[in-house]
């Protein structure tokens, strides 16, 4: 939490006190980890969360309110925490360890096994969980609470840092709201209302939410009556209808930097690390292979999973395996042909890779269909595919690497290299969206602030210095490039599709005839 703290050498006394407060909070949490039994858990818990929050607030006020409004990146590359120094590595290792314990060894956090009472840090959170939903805490409840707290506290810090920038403030408010309400409170209340319902954060959309179509989840929805059914339908509509429409209108930012929880943490708690993303061309190449492989994996995995449970009791669901697999293939084919016919130009050189991806999926699905028995797919035990995805992608990639490595690889490692949802949204953004970052004529001085602070590792300057709009599938529309640009060159806009992608050889400001001659060639 207050890991972004021990940065400046010259912090004021007040800030030191604030830092101390935050550390006291962390200390209590770690004491709890070692099973120190606190007398009045409820008070201790509130106290802990309270001092961490207050510490962050006081520290941020000291950092930003003492200065005039403006860009606050002084010393970013000198501070150990934000430049992969000692504190950066320490934070990275601590976070990574925390995620490993959280995902694989929750008993060390004090999770009571087989109905035993919670102890340790999880036990500490029991009172809060009881208050919200009348049940004891789990490791996920503890994680969810700390996660939400991080977004809120660092969101506040972000607010102060960008207090001259309304775009930054509005979108940060948005992620804070969605995290608190949709990811944290509403699922708890939903449980209170109807405890058959599976945990469902309705803003978390498949394939990011890879378990929504799990058997237990779907069954849970179906047994929970109309509300369950409605939620399931909403889940399906989210990805197939709502997502494309919103992305068409606003670009993928509507999700990635306004709504999504992963994005929310990256933008707030991860803000100090955005400059660490690699801008090398090689990183971009790696990104494209990785993220699309994860997408293929997630589509195949989900289809296989649904396919399995459709199999064994053919009368339980109205859908049969044959119909299901045919409709998945049909849908993918429609999308593929549609893109190849109508968007071939935008797709350009990437068309080849799109085709590879498409045929890979179809081939995998067909192999599955023809080798599949009830409990074996691809000759491996069905279910292992799903658990492999859960462990390698869901836990290790998105959690351990995605967040644990913030201070080393930047705050959007998961979003950039792994998130299958980002891949789908990015695809839509690249091909069918009104969103782009417009560059301002010839004003760019190639300084590099935009590229440095782009958390997605986009070399924004490469476009800006050519006067070319930025239309990139990975851009999450955080708007930081536009904020840090000292010459007012970049503007995030939703405008018409026409002329969105422009290529210039010669920039505005030169001889009009020369520009015509060269650019219209």
């Amino acid at each position, binding site marked *: 939490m207050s890991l972004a703290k021990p940065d400046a050498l*010259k912090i004021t006394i007040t800030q030191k006190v604030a830092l101390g407060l935050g550390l006291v909070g962390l200390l209590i949490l770690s004491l709890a980890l070692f099973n120190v039994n606190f007398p009045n858990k409820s008070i201790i818990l509130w106290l802990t969360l309270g001092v961490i929050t207050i510490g962050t607030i006081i520290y941020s006020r000291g950092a930003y309110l003492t200065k*005039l*409004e*403006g*860009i606050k*990146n*002084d*010393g*970013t*590359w*000198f*501070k150990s925490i934000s430049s992969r120094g000692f504190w950066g590595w320490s934070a990275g290792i601590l976070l990574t360890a925390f995620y490993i314990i959280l995902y694989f060894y929750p008993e060390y956090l004090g999770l009571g096994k087989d109905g035993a009472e919670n102890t340790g840090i999880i036990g500490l959170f029991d009172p809060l969980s009881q208050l919200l939903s009348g049940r004891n805490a789990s490791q996920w409840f503890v994680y969810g609470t700390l996660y939400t707290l991080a977004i809120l506290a660092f969101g506040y810090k972000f607010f102060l840092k960008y207090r*001259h*920038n*309304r*775009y930054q*403030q*509005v979108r940060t408010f948005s992620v804070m709201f969605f995290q608190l309400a949709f990811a944290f409170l509403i699922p708890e209340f939903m449980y209170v209302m109807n405890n058959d319902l599976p945990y469902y954060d309705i803003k978390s959309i498949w394939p990011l939410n890879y378990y929504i179509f799990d058997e237990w989840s779907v069954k849970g929805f179906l047994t929970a009556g109309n509300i369950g059914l409605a939620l399931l339908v909403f889940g399906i509509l989210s990805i197939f209808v709502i997502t494309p429409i919103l992305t068409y209108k606003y670009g993928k930012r509507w999700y990635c930097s306004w709504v999504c929880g992963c994005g929310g943490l990256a933008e707030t708690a991860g803000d100090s690390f955005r400059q660490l993303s690699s801008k*090398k*061309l090689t990183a971009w190449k790696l990104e494209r292979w990785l993220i699309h492989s994860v997408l293929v994996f997630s589509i195949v995995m989900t289809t296989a999973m649904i396919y399995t449970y459709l199999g064994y009791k053919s009368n339980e669901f109205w859908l049969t395996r044959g119909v299901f697999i045919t409709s998945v293939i049909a849908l993918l084919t429609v999308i593929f042909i549609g893109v190849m016919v109508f968007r071939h130009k935008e797709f350009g050189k990437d068309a080849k890779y799109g085709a590879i991806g498409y045929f890979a999926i179809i081939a995998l699905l067909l192999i599955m269909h023809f080798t599949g028995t009830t409990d074996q797919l691809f000759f491996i035990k069905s279910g292992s595919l799903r658990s492999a995805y859960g462990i390698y992608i869901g836990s290790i990639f998105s959690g351990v690497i995605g967040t644990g490595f913030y201070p080393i690889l930047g705050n959007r490692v998961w979003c950039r290299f792994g998130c299958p949802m980002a891949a789908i949204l990015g695809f839509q953004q690249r091909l069918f969206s009104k969103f782009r970052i417009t560059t*301002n*004529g*010839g*004003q760019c*001085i*190639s*300084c*590099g*602030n935009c*590229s*440095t602070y782009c958390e997605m590792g986009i070399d924004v*300057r*490469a476009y800006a*210095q050519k006067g070319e709009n930025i239309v990139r599938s990975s851009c999450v529309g955080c*708007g930081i490039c*536009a*904020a*840090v640009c*000292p*010459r*007012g060159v970049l*503007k*995030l*806009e939703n405008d018409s599709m026409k002329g969105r992608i422009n290529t210039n*050889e*010669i*920039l*505005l*400001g*030169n*001889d*009009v*005839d*020369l520009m015509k001659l*060269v650019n219209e060639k």
Partner: protein
Amino acid sequence: MAVKDLTIPSTIFLLTIQNNMEHIVIIGNGISGVTLARHIRKLSDKKITLISGETKYFFSRTALMYVYMGHMKFEHTQPYENWFWKKNRIELKLGYVKSVQTKSKTLHFNSGETLQYDKLVIATGSKPNKFGWPGQDLDGVMGMYHKQDLENLEIYAPNNETCKRAVIVGGGLIGIELAEMLNSRSIPVTFLVRESSFWNGVLPEGESAMINRHIINHHIDLRLSTNLREINADENGKVKSVIIHETGEELACDVVGLTAGVSPNIDFLQNSEIETGRGVKVNRYLETNIKDVYAIGDCAEQHEAIGNRRPIEAVWYTGRMMGETLAQTLCGNRIKYNPGHWFNSAKFMDIEYQTYGWVHGSKGRPEYETHFHWKHKDDTKCVTIAFNKNTNEFLGINTFGIRMRHETFDKWLTEKRDVDYVINHLSEANFDPEFYATFEEQILKAYYHQLQTAI
């Protein structure tokens, strides 16, 4: 006999190869030289060599300040990855050219090496002005132009313990950047400005006054109408203090930044036949008096100024535009350097500034040019629109704290819109991020209010 028969055609063959592979040598790997090299590569297969005595790889000079401030590392200021040059077959040479022999088309390096060229382009940029102040070469006295200046600053002003105070001499764009840099490390700064108000040779009064206040709000000791008399040394030859000309006051300091403008960096041409004035003299085709020798960027001086422009234009954009233009000429399509409407931008601490067309300060303002000025009450945003008081034609705009769209103003200037049109359509030109407060209505109101009072 047989041998001779063979040699004749093969010499011809060699010659043609050499013709195709004409060797273009560019001295200076700044924005102008690099833009030129890139465009030549796009248009042709010629052999290109880029020389610099400063750094092997191109970096953005305008970003030097951000390295000192810790916003970026030096490598972030390099717009192209290191493999780019090899891939595009642009040869890089690190070395300082000592002299040029145009007759034999030879360059002589400091190291004693030589290099032959077929065509030579001089793109050596600028160097900081020094006006002969006593003590101007002491340790701890520096300009702010080259990467070496930055390294020097890092030695003499790493923090506010080693550098208890810095004095900056010269109130221009680089001076205020240097002030911001030192300020970011909490080093107290005294800023000596010769003019009665910051940069008022260029900025109209209202804007210049607003920037004065902004500088002071950053706790910088701004001294207007103040000149430097001399710089004093301590026993080790390092700067100890400066004396102010007007008052004789002695100011203790550890660093003196000389930022009183720049001039072309062309001393190495002194003994060549290339004609120079303040800069390398060129015609509209960027050709010098010597065949096959050209000059672009900060170091080029037009025989006659183009329009309202100065004969030497020491800005990023013009360097780039000259590079774009000269590449055409060198690749067989001889065209004039013919820049479009003037534009520029800068940032004064936290206030961004953009300009399109011509808005003059009190100096050199044509008699027909008059201004409409609006300032926001928070004292960080203002707009000045210049127009012809006889014809109402829109001449240009300065905007502070509000971003505007280059393309829109370029179009309006070409269309010769009048000032009413511009003020009424200002929102079309707005380039601020989404959700920002807009001020067009206020501006419009202020405009009509001023009109009425004027009548």
